[in-house]
């Protein structure tokens, strides 16, 4: 089955919502595809607390005349102008004249002994789980890693009744507070207030501090923290640990968009190096909510042919001095690359330990010899870690991407070219029966 759009937007976070709403307001037939259960992306994930900007944009989205494709995961581009998507055992071709990629970012994870135990999660990861109904009241949480998310997550979890026992940031706090404000689109003063609020609830802040081991048998029981040369154990129920953000580049890379220094290259109107493909938000540079909203609007207007309006907004962006300030902000301490022991798992999908990887010269070699990065996450977790641990630039996505960019059903992979956009035909027997076998 196929659907046709003037403009297809991928990703329903702030950038994607802004792009889709702007393009729909310009009278185009717009589709908005997103693989989460609800729109908002990771930063505006539903839950108790939503900032005003989120409520405003989600209301605009609900009022906009566009086709919402919620829960659809894009895994291939069988031909120019077509993306192939899957939901449960359904498969559809989404056809477009113009495409706007707003695929967002994910957390960077780094391996250390015990990091694979249950209840060790990303900072945003635990926050997402709590917004998804995980009870946190009364639970002891250590928040660790680096980047603007830590403080925001600690504040949110504390507000939900968690006992945040420690927040460990590897960088100095004075650098993190303004960045947190930029990422969340909230005034720095407010964030400072939140920081003190978390502290007032009993959390201790440590800078230059990180976890060096997680202890426990079937799940996390305590975490060993290190600051300067001191080590100490902290008992806790959850460790929320992430090392800033990395953009989701798989789809831009699959489509051939030029990527430089780890980000999609986009011009003032958010056009990528590929004709009719735009990119907005974090994949073009980690810049936070306000910048993502602006880039999304520029992309939506430009894709809809409202060039003058798009240029006007793009000029406003320059005037306001928006920059991808977070790009270089969280430089990881080199010591973080030395936490894994020989037996520490680096590739969680295939259980490949650090020692097995260390002897290889590059990512490709490591993949072929150890199956590292060849499990269902396709290197999204271990590839990012390997880039930092071993300096393997080839672990970056653009050199190794190929379809499907997410594991897909055999029936979806077998969807024949006949049912793509030109023929607009009925789904094949394979697609309609939906084999349950998944390629892993």
């Amino acid at each position: 089955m196929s659907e046709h759009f003037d403009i297809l937007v991928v990703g329903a976070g702030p950038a994607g919502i802004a792009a889709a709403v702007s393009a729909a307001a310009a009278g185009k037939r717009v589709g908005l595809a997103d693989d989460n259960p609800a729109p908002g992306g990771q930063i505006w994930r539903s839950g108790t607390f939503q900032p005003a900007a989120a409520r405003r944009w989600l209301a605009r989205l609900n009022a906009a005349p566009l086709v919402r494709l919620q829960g659809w995961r894009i895994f291939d581009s069988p031909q120019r102008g077509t993306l192939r998507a899957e939901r449960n055992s359904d498969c559809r071709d989404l056809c477009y004249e113009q495409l706007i990629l707003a695929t967002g970012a994910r957390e960077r994870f780094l391996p250390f002994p015990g990091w694979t135990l249950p209840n060790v999660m990303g900072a945003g990861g635990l926050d997402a789980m709590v917004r998804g109904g995980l009870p946190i009241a009364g639970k002891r949480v250590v928040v660790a890693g680096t980047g603007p998310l830590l403080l925001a997550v600690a504040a949110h979890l504390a507000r939900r009744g968690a006992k945040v026992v420690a927040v460990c940031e590897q960088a100095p706090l004075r650098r993190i507070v303004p960045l947190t404000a930029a990422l969340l689109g909230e005034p720095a003063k407010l964030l400072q207030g939140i920081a003190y609020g978390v502290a007032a609830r009993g959390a201790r802040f440590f800078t230059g501090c990180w976890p060096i081991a997680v202890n426990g048998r079937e799940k996390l029981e305590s975490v060993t923290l290190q600051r300067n040369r001191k080590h100490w154990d902290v008992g806790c129920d959850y460790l929320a640990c992430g090392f800033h953000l990395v953009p989701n580049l798989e789809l831009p890379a699959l489509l051939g968009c030029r990527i430089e220094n780890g980000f999609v290259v986009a011009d003032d109107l958010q056009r990528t190096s590929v004709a009719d493909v735009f990119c907005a938000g974090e994949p073009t540079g980690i810049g936070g909510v306000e910048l993502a909203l602006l880039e999304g609007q520029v992309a939506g207007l430009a894709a809809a042919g409202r060039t003058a309006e798009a240029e006007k907004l793009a000029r406003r962006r320059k005037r306001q001095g928006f920059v991808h300030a977070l790009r270089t902000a969280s430089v990881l301490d080199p010591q973080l690359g030395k936490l894994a022991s020989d037996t520490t798992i680096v590739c969680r999908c295939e259980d490949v330990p650090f020692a097995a990887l260390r002897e290889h010269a590059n990512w490709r070699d490591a993949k072929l010899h150890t199956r590292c990065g060849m499990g269902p996450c396709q290197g999204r977790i271990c590839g990012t870690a390997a880039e930092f641990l071993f300096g393997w630039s080839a672990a970056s996505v653009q050199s190794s991407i190929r379809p499907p960019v997410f594991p897909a059903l055999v029936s979806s992979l077998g969807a024949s070219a006949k049912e793509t956009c030109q023929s607009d035909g009925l789904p094949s027997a394979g697609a309609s029966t939906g084999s349950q076998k998944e390629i892993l």
Partner: protein
Amino acid sequence: MPDPVRSLALRVNGVPLTVAPGTTVAAAIMMAGAPARRSVSGEPRGPLCGMGICFECRATVDGTPHQRSCQILCAEGMDVRTS
């Protein structure tokens, strides 16, 4: 007696569990106290990223294996199995 509007009944590994609407299957699995899966070498694993990237939370949902449970909302009568 749970409020039928404000709670959903499902089973995780056969054990009944009641959750609020909007709860993800991954959260339900954690509430049930089960690891989401065993790794290829038998280690217990739970959700890591919470956003459909890491595949650590995959479970069998209503008979369909390898579902990323953090991306699926609980539904009345759902049958969830972890390996």
